[in-house]
Every structure is written in structure tokens, then in C-alpha cells.
């Protein structure tokens, strides 16, 4: 070990590294992370007992075992998981080989890469703040290396202040740095997360991640009237059959031939549906499609399908009506939509009875059920607890938290318990109206599930139980950012029964708005959002972007420079000033205080050369030394004395 590297620096460095790697315990395989912390611990002991540090041969063996572990745990070095593992292992091994200051820098840089890899796993506000704090500590390490006597706390403080000063510039870079939609290289992607979107089955708790993807599914460009947000239901696969957990489409393909004709009323919506490449041949028409052209066709549950290639972008002109009546249903359809698996538990029956489900009026029952959801503080959250067994019962009575899938399945099930034919429709809800493009843009995050209930005389009627819980989800101009941030936020109606609850609620709402802003402005500031934001600033091309970027960097740097270089107000304190005056009075006597000469030495010299001023100058010197180095309690009085003494000191006159 190089003796130049102080143990203080090493402790600083190793602690920062430990903190930086700690959150990886959650994602990196246990053997690898244990290997890393073993090396870190070894190095830490080595600070105090250098003899325990491994020799060259052992380091080489450790290197080999590290490589072995990597090969064993992962295939290759590309991709998020493998890359992270490689960097962590390299960091750990490098720790045992600190020979010069250069190594410290290399380790610090590696630590920053490890910090970045944290964000590939977790992107919440806590992680960001945590990494920010550890970054301060890493900068503190660099400061430690480069500043002799700066103390530990002072190093951290200084690092913190540098970091704070860097924040405005960082914000500017963040806003203006052009985002590139990099090609998604397959070898860099890990396949442990399914691509979000709709599938051909629905399980209440299976797709928690649904709704966190910003990929565009389609755009609808309207001519004429544009549907209100609460009318924007884009119809996808319909699920009638359930095995108690999974909901799938009816296997009966022959429905269509027996279907009653749909009668439409009200105003028609005419639009062109521009589908992005899809994994399935589904076309999401506005509920309910009335007119369409080849290659589209409608199946027995009024879903549009395409017979053309769906893996490429395609455009379909469609007309839809918001008001419609599907008429009668067939016996098979009736039977299928009353199918119940499993048989309802006793408390479910009780609940249905209590809400009037066995009475005659299905619509009253639906109203009561919606009210039940509202009054029992059911929560809308994209991160609901998992429901392994009896999902519907558990959801209704125990967890009472979920997203559209949970509500739609529970609602449909309860309808069927009450003997009312019901089914689940999946698709998309909402979409952002784009003023400039005059189209509605629908993303994967808009994925939704709702229910249809067959009511005598009205046909299949759409009911969206989610509106009972989170009307914001439907009525507001829900955009993807909001939904992503809604992540784990409750929309339960606020009950002001006690102050604690209201305090909790308000804290929660502050937190949720913070979390919302975090997701809205930071996590989801992608190419599209950036272009939107920049166009609001009037930036439309790369050149004006460049002007803005350079302009704001220059502006911020100037302010910062002015702040840093503002003349350190040189308050040569009065003590210095008066003493200097006294010394000036001695200059004509060829008594000039040299720079290196202490006040006392100079006083002795004055004594020797001009003993006649000895007494006077001695007083000045004593006062000066007292003020400068002594414990100053009566500073003002002493300064006054010094001032008087200097005033009366007139060596020339004598």
C-alpha cells in the first residue's frame, strides 16, 4: 500500500462504496453481492491491519473466482443484470489493489457506474435522493485526496456545496440535452419483464406492471366531433369464461350468426384509427363500432379484428356511436355469461343480498354496489397486494385495493352471482388529445378493463366499476404520467372522522403530488415530452436548441462565477489597520517591519534602535497581540485603546 494514501481517505472511500452498492442487495444474486462485501470488508480491515491484506497470488485467485462466479451466474457481459454484476465484481476486486492515487480515482469512477446501474432497477424518489447523498460522499473522497488539512465534515460540506451549485446546470442539461430513442438492442435487454399491453386473458392480480408503459398503441384522428374523456372506451377482447382465476374469451365462435342487430342512435364519431405495430390482430375501435371497411371484421362480441398484417402500422377508417342497443342475446350467450366458478362463498352471497342483488332491479343493485365500493374505502392502486387464492373474495373483503382488472372481475362476478349476465371487456380508456395533431393518442398505459351487463331492453350496457373508486381515472384528462404516478395512490374518498386520518391523508396527498411531479417531469421526460416542452419554449429546431443550451449554461455560469469570485470582502480588521498605521509612522526612522518578522521581534528591534519610543510602541504591540491572538472578550474596548495609542504615537515629533 502506498503510504501517501491516508487511512482517512480510505475509510471515506470504502464507506461511500459500501453505501453505493448496498441497494444492489435487492437485485444482484446473493453469491455475487456477498463476494463483493467480503472483499470490501477485507479491505476495510486492511486499513487497520495492513498485514492481513491479500498477497498478489491470493488477489489473482480472487480474480479467478470472481470471473468464475460471473460466468456461473450470468451468460455474457451485456445487459442490465450481467453488466451490473460485472461492474460490482470489478469494483470489489479493484479495492484490493489500491496502489496509487490513480487507483482511488478509478474506484470512484467505477462507483459512479454502479450508482447509475441502481437506476436501471429502481427509479423512485428515495433512490434518487439516496444516490445523491452517496455522490456527495464520493466527491468528499476526492476532496480528501486533494486537500491536505480539510476536515471530514468540512470535506462533506464542501462536496455538498459543489453539488448544490451544480444543480441548476444539471437541470438545464436535463431539459435541453436531446433525447435519442436509441434502438433497443436485443442483447442489452433483459426479458424478465413482459412487454405491457393486453393479453388474451385476464387475471385480477397478474399484470401489476400494466399501465407503466408509455408505448403508443394507436392514434385516432377525428373528423368532426371528438368524444369526451368518459366516452373514450376503446374496445378490445371480451372475456366471458372464467376458471375462478383466469378470465378468457368465449370459445363459441358461432355467436355472430345469431346476434341481434345493433341499433345505433345519437351522433356518430368518424375517425381514422392509426394502429402501431401490434402483437395481435385486434383493432381497438371506439365503443361501439358501427361502420368499418375491409380488412376489418367484427366478431361475436363486437370486437374489431383485422385480417391484414398487424405487425406493421396500419390505418383504418371507422365510425362509432356512443349510444347503442345490442338487443337480445341468445340462450348460449345468456348461459355463458352467467357461468360461475367457483361457487360463491357465503359472505359473497350475503353481500349480494345485502346490496339488493336478488331483487328485481339490476340497475339498483349496480348503484348499490358502486356505493359499496366507495363507502368501504376501496383503493385504486397499480401496486396491489398479490392475490394467490380466491382472488375475488380476498379482494372484496380483505385487501380492498386494486386496479381496473380487480374491479372489473369482482363486479362481473357479483353480477353473475345475482343472476345478471355480465362479462369483462378489456381495451383502452382515455387517451390524450393532441391539439397540434388533432388526434387522440392512446398508450399502453391507458389499458383498461370494464364490465358489460346485459339488461332487458337495453342489451349489453357498459359499466366501469373503476369510476366508483377513481373517477379521476375516467373523467379527467388522464395522461400516462398521471397514471404512472398513481402507482400506489389511493383514491379512496377522504373521510374526516379524526384529525390523525386527515393529517395522514394530507401528508399522503403531498407525497402523492410530489411523486406525481417526480414521474411526470423526471422519469417520463422522454423524447416526446421533451419536444412538447421545448416547443412551448419556442424551440423547434436543433439550432435554436443549441442557442438555448449555450445561452442558459453561460447565464448560469456567469451568475455562479460572480457569486464565487465576488470580492471576498477583505475586512482587514481594524486591529491590523491600526497596527499598520503605527508601523507606517516608524518608516521615516528607517524602521520597516519585514514581512516575516513577528510583532514582538519587531518591537525588540524598535527598542534597540529607538529606545525613546519603547514604552509607547510596547503598548501598541501588546494590544495588537492581544487582539490578534488572545481570547477576545472586550474586543471593542481594546480596539478603542489601540486606536488611541496609535493616535498618540508620534515618533516623528520627538
Amino acid at each position: 500500500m502506498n503510504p501517501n494514501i491516508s487511512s482517512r481517505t480510505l475509510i471515506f472511500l470504502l464507506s461511500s462504496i459500501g453505501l453505493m452498492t448496498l441497494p444492489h442487495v435487492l437485485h444482484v444474486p446473493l453469491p455475487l453481492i456477498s463476494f463483493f462485501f467480503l472483499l470490501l470488508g477485507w479491505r476495510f480491515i486492511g486499513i487497520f491491519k495492513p498485514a492481513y491484506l491479500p498477497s498478489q497470488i491470493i488477489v489473482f485467485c480472487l480474480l479467478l473466482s470472481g470471473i468464475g462466479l460471473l460466468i456461473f451466474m450470468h451468460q455474457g457481459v451485456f445487459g442490465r443484470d450481467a453488466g451490473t454484476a460485472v461492474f460490482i465484481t470489478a469494483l470489489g476486486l479493484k479495492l484490493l489493489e489500491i496502489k496509487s492515487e490513480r487507483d482511488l480515482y478509478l474506484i470512484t469512477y467505477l462507483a459512479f457506474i454502479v450508482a447509475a446501474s441502481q437506476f436501471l432497477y429502481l427509479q423512485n424518489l428515495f433512490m434518487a435522493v439516496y444516490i445523491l447523498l452517496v455522490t456527495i460522499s464520493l466527491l468528499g473522497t476526492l476532496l480528501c485526496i486533494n486537500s491536505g488539512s480539510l476536515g471530514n465534515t468540512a470535506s462533506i460540506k464542501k462536496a455538498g456545496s459543489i453539488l448544490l451549485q451544480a444543480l441548476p446546470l444539471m437541470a438545464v442539461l436535463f431539459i435541453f440535452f436531446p433525447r435519442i430513442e436509441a434502438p433497443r438492442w436485443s442483447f442489452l435487454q433483459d426479458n424478465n419483464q413482459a412487454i405491457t399491453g393486453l393479453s388474451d386473458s385476464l387475471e385480477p392480480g397478474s399484470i401489476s406492471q400494466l399501465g407503466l408503459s408509455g408505448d403508443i398503441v394507436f392514434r385516432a384522428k377525428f373528423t368532426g366531433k371528438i368524444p369526451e374523456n368518459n366516452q373514450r372506451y376503446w374496445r378490445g377482447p371480451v372475456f366471458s369464461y372464467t376458471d375462478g382465476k383466469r378470465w378468457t374469451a368465449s370459445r363459441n365462435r358461432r355467436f355472430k350468426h345469431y346476434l341481434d342487430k345493433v341499433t345505433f342512435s345519437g351522433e356518430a364519431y368518424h375517425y381514422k384509427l392509426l394502429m402501431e405495430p401490434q402483437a395481435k390482430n385486434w383493432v381497438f375501435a371506439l365503443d361501439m363500432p358501427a361502420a368499418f371497411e375491409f380488412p376489418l371484421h367484427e366478431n361475436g362480441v363486437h370486437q374489431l379484428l383485422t385480417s391484414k398484417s398487424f405487425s406493421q402500422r396500419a390505418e383504418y377508417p371507422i365510425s362509432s356511436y356512443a349510444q347503442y342497443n345490442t338487443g337480445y342475446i341468445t340462450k348460449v350467450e345468456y348461459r355463458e355469461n352467467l357461468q360461475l366458478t367457483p361457487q360463491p362463498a357465503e359472505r359473497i352471497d350475503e353481500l349480494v343480498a345485502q346490496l339488493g342483488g336478488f331483487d328485481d332491479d339490476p340497475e339498483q343493485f349496480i348503484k348499490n354496489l358502486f356505493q359499496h365500493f366507495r363507502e368501504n374505502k376501496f383503493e385504486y392502486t397499480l401496486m396491489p397486494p398479490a392475490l394467490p387464492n380466491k382472488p375475488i373474495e380476498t379482494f372484496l373483503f380483505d385487501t380492498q385495493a386494486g386496479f381496473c382488472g380487480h374491479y372489473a372481475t369482482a363486479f362481473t362476478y357479483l353480477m353473475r352471482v345475482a343472476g345478471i349476465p355480465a362479462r369483462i371487456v378489456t381495451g383502452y380508456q382515455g387517451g390524450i388529445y393532441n391539439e397540434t395533431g388533432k388526434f387522440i393518442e392512446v398508450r399502453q398505459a391507458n389499458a383498461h378493463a370494464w364490465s358489460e351487463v346485459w339488461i332487458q331492453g337495453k342489451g349489453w350496457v357498459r359499466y366501469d366499476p373503476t369510476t366508483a373508486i377513481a373517477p379521476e381515472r375516467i373523467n379527467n384528462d388522464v395522461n400516462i404520467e398521471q397514471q404512472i404516478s398513481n402507482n400506489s395512490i389511493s383514491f379512496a374518498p377522504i373521510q374526516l372522522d379524526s384529525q390523525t386520518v386527515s393529517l395522514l391523508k394530507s401528508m399522503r396527498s403531498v407525497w402523492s403530488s410530489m411523486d406525481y411531479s417526480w414521474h411526470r417531469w423526471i422519469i417520463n421526460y422522454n423524447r416526446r415530452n421533451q419536444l412538447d416542452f421545448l416547443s412551448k419554449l419556442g424551440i423547434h429546431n436543433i439550432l435554436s436548441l443549441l442557442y438555448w443550451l449555450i445561452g442558459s449554461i453561460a447565464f448560469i455560469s456567469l451568475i455562479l462565477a460572480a457569486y464565487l469570485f465576488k470580492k471576498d470582502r477583505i475586512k482587514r480588521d481594524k486591529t491590523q489597520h491600526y497596527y499598520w498605521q503605527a508601523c507606517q509612522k516608524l518608516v521615516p526612522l528607517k524602521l520597516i517591519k519585514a514581512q516575516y518578522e513577528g510583532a514582538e521581534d519587531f518591537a525588540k528591534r524598535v527598542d534597540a534602535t529607538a529606545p525613546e519610543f519603547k514604552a509607547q510602541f510596547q503598548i501598541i504591540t501588546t494590544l495588537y497581540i492581544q487582539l490578534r491572538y488572545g481570547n477576545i472578550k472586550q474586543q471593542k474596548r481594546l480596539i478603542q485603546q489601540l486606536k488611541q495609542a496609535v493616535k498618540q504615537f508620534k515618533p516623528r515629533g520627538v
Partner: protein
Amino acid sequence: MQDSIRLHYRRLYILPTKRGMGFVALLVLLVTIAAIYNNNLVYLLSFLLASIFFITILHTVKSLEGIVLKKGHNPAVFLGENTQNQLILDNPTNTARFSVQVNLLNQTPQIIDINAQDKNSVLLKQITTQRGWHQSSTLIIASLYPLGLFRTWIKPKLEFKTLVYPRPSANSSPFPSSHISDDAPADSSQGQDDFYGVQSYQAGDSPRKIHWRALAKGQGLYSKQYSGESRANELILDYELTTGADSEQRLSQLCRWVIDAHQANIPYAFKLGSLHLDTHQGEQHYQQCLEALALF
């Protein structure tokens, strides 16, 4: 020539260090990761580090800005010795300075800290190779503070002129005797009165006469020679009386005599070229002689 220089940011050079370039490579890597994964937080981290890199320029320049360099004590030295140029770094500002590197060209830097409103000093040493005025080589003040990513430096036009006396000849030969009057037989009259020179030690010389100082310096064994008071005034150190292959050797010899005489507190007259100094004693006289020797 200036005696004090205030370091001003406009005159400071600044360039990234190798480590700074490494940092840039790190930034490039981070931005690449951010772009590949479309991860805004990685972007954010890269931009934070980039901003810190940028801001460090200001901090590094600021680490030297405002320091006032002053020349301190600068004693004359004998040829072959190191110069002892004191450089005072005065920090009149309210911010402490850390790890200021001070060095002369091609020397390893001395690293010092200066507290706020305080001074610190370094001794700049350089071997002297020539008699006369010694010009110090270029002074360099540099700083890597705070993060070592940038190095700022300045070569202030602050020159140290050091007077270099001749190298005193190693073997001290006895004082010139030709100018001592021959009143009495030399041997018998050489009593205990006054020192006038040294001779090689001869067996039988009293131990009290041994020139211990020369012995301690490793110059060999010599005995001190004393003379009666009457002759004390007669000691004349004359360049013409020295022996040696060239003028430098002769000056060395003369220098040695002056030192010996001064140390022994013998008044002496001094003759060098056109310069004649009357018999005298004391620091000032001594300095005058050495100065003359240096500048001859």
C-alpha cells in the same frame, strides 16, 4: 521588479488533468448507458457529474485567486549550498486555501494549506553553481483543488536574486604572515595573546590550541597560532597573498581567511582588487568582505 504579486484569475492557466479526462470518459459511458436504456435518472446522474466537472473549473481557479505572493527572507549563501528563498503566500481573503503546490521549475512541488486571513511560507531551495548573483528558476504555483479534475497554474514573474559567496576553501591555511612585522622571533613570541591563524598540527602542540572547529568540520587537525596584541592590528587579508591555480581557488582561500578571522574575532583589513577595507571587526565588516568576494 515586483516584490509582491497578487494572483489574478485572468492570468491563471487551467487544463483538465489525466484524471479529468478519465472523468470525461466516465461521463460518455454514463450518457451511453442512459441512452441505451432510455433512463432519465441515469441521464440526470450524468448531467449532475458533468455540471460538477464544469463547475470545478471555477473552484479550481478560485483556489489560487487572490493569493498574494511576497518575497520573504532571502539570505546569501556560499557556493554549493542551497538557496533559502522564503516565499510568503498571503491569503487576505476569507476562504482557506488547500493543497497549494509551490515549486521551482523541475522540482517536486511543496504542498501547503493557507488559512483564511493568514499567511504561510515555503522555502525554495536550489543548489548554487556559480558565485555572484543567483537567479532562481521559474516559480510555479499550481492547484488541483477541489477534485483533482483540473490543474490550474501560474508562473508568476517573481525572481529571487540570491547573493552567492565563493565556496570557502576546504583546508584552512594559516593567515598570511608576510605582512606581520618581524619584531621578534616568530616562535618565541607566539604566546597566548591573540589568535592570528592556524597551522598544521605538530606533535607537542597543546591540546588547548587545537582548532576544534576545523576538526569538527572534518578539515583535519590544526593548531591555532596566537600572537601578542601588538600584532593584532596587522592582519591584512589580501587577495595577492593567496595561492591557488585560478582566481576562484584564490577567492576561496581568501573567503576562508575572512571566515576564520571573523569567527576568531580578530580585526582584519581586506584587500581585493581595487577594494581596500581598513582593519575592522564585526558583522557589517564581515558582510562587506563576503559581498566583495561574491561580486568580484
